[in-house]
C-alpha cells in the first residue's frame, strides 16, 4: 500500500489527520505532510477511511 496525495487538490481541511493522525499531519504552515508513505497493512482501514472522507478527494491509495 502506497499513499499518493495530490497536493494541488489538497486544501488542508485536515479531515485525514483526524481519522489517521499517525499517517497524515497538517502543520502550522498550512500544508499537509504524509508521515508514512507506505503504511503497514494494519493501518489500511484507517487510511482508506481518510482517503474516502477527504473533501477534495486528494488522497489516492495505490
Amino acid at each position, binding site marked *: 500500500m502506497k499513499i499518493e496525495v*495530490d*497536493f*494541488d*487538490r489538497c*486544501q488542508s481541511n485536515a*479531515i485525514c489527520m483526524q481519522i489517521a493522525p499517525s499517517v497524515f499531519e497538517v502543520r502550522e504552515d*498550512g500544508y499537509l505532510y504524509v508521515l508514512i508513505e507506505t503504511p503497514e497493512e494494519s493501518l489500511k482501514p484507517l487510511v482508506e*477511511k481518510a482517503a*474516502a*472522507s*477527504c*473533501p*477534495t*478527494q486528494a488522497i489516492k491509495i495505490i
Partner: protein
Amino acid sequence: MKKRCAIVGASLGGFRSAQELRKAGFDGEIVLIGEESHPPYQRPPLSKQLLKGTSPVERCYLRGNISEPYSRKLGVRATSIDPLEKNITLSNDTTVEYDYAVISTGARPITFPKVPPSSRVIYLRNIEDSVRLRDQLKQHVRIGVVGAGFIGSEVAASVSGLVKQVVLFDGDEHPMSKVVGPYLSQTLKTVHQNNGVETVFGAPVSIVDSETEDVVWIETPSQRHPFDVVVIGVGVKPATQWLRSVDSLKFDEVGALLADDKGKVYGAEALYVVGDASSWLHPLYQRHIHVEHFESTVNQASQVAKNITNTPRDAPELPFAWTEQHGRLIQTVGVRMADSKDEVIHRSGHALVVLFHSSDKVTGAAVFDASEELSWAKAAVLSSLRKEPD
C-alpha cells in the same frame, strides 16, 4: 527529431497537461503559452482562502516543475490556430509550430452589458480580482453579490463577518439550485441566512454603476440597494472565440470545443482540449458533457497525455466537485440533468445524500456535510450508469 507539444492556456489544465505528458514519458519539447503573467495557479482558493486572507497568493500556485526541454510564454495570448499547417499565432505576432497541441484556455466571466469591471465592480476570475476584493473587505463596507452559483455563493459565505453587510442576489429562488437541486439549495439558503448573508432571490437584477455616485446600485423590480462593492458571478463562457475562424471545429451550445472521449478535438489532427474550454464525449453518459471543475480538468489532462503518448488510459471517472460555505461541505458526483427527479436520502445520523434521477438512471448525487458518504453515493451513480437497459 523530437516532437513539440504546444499547450495554450497556462492555468490548471495547461500546467497539468505538461506534467502528465512528462509522467507518461513524453520527452519532446513542451511550450506553455498563457496570457496571465502569474506562474500557473489554481482557482478554488480565489473565492475562499485567498479572499478571506487565510492563504497568501503563493498558496494558489501549482506545485511541481516541468523538466526540459520546456519553455513558457507568459503574458501573450493565442489569437488563432491553423490545424492544417499545425501552427499557432500569438498576440505578439510570433508563431509557434507544433506536432501536438492542447487547448486549455479555460473560460471568461459572463459580463452584464454596460457594467464593465472597475475598482468596485468585480467579476471574480483571476488572482488580481480576488486580491482587489480582499483589499476592500473592511467592517464598514457593504457588498452585493450577484449570482448564487458556486462563485457567488462562496464569495458571500467567505466575506460574511468581514464586512458590514453582504447581500446575495439571484434570479432563481435558491442558491446553486441547478447543481444541487431544490432541497439542498433550500438548506444552503438557510445556512446563508443563519450566518449573516441576506438573500434576495427570485427577481431579475440590474446593476447601476455611475461615476457620479459614491455607490453601486443593485436593483430588482421592487427594491433598490446601495453597495460599496459589487461582485458578479453569473457564470462563465468558454474562452474559445479565437478558434471560431476554423471551420472544421465543432462547438456546443455554450461555445465549448467538442472532443471525443479521449479529448481529441473533432475536425483537426493532433489537437486536444481540456478543462472549462472543452466538452468531451463521456462514455458513461454517452453524450458530450461540459464541466467547469478542478477535478475533471485534472483527469482530462492525464487522459490527453496518455492519448498523445499512446499509454493505456484509466477508466472514465465521474465528474466531481465540492464547495465549502460557512464551514459546510457540499460534494457532487456525476451530473444533475435539467429534468432531474431528486431523491433525498437520510443516511446514518445527520448525513444527507440527494440522488439525481433522469431517464431511469441515477445520473449524479450530492452529499451534504457528510464526506464519509461520498463513496456510497459514487457507487450508486456508477452502478446505475453501467447497468444495461432492461
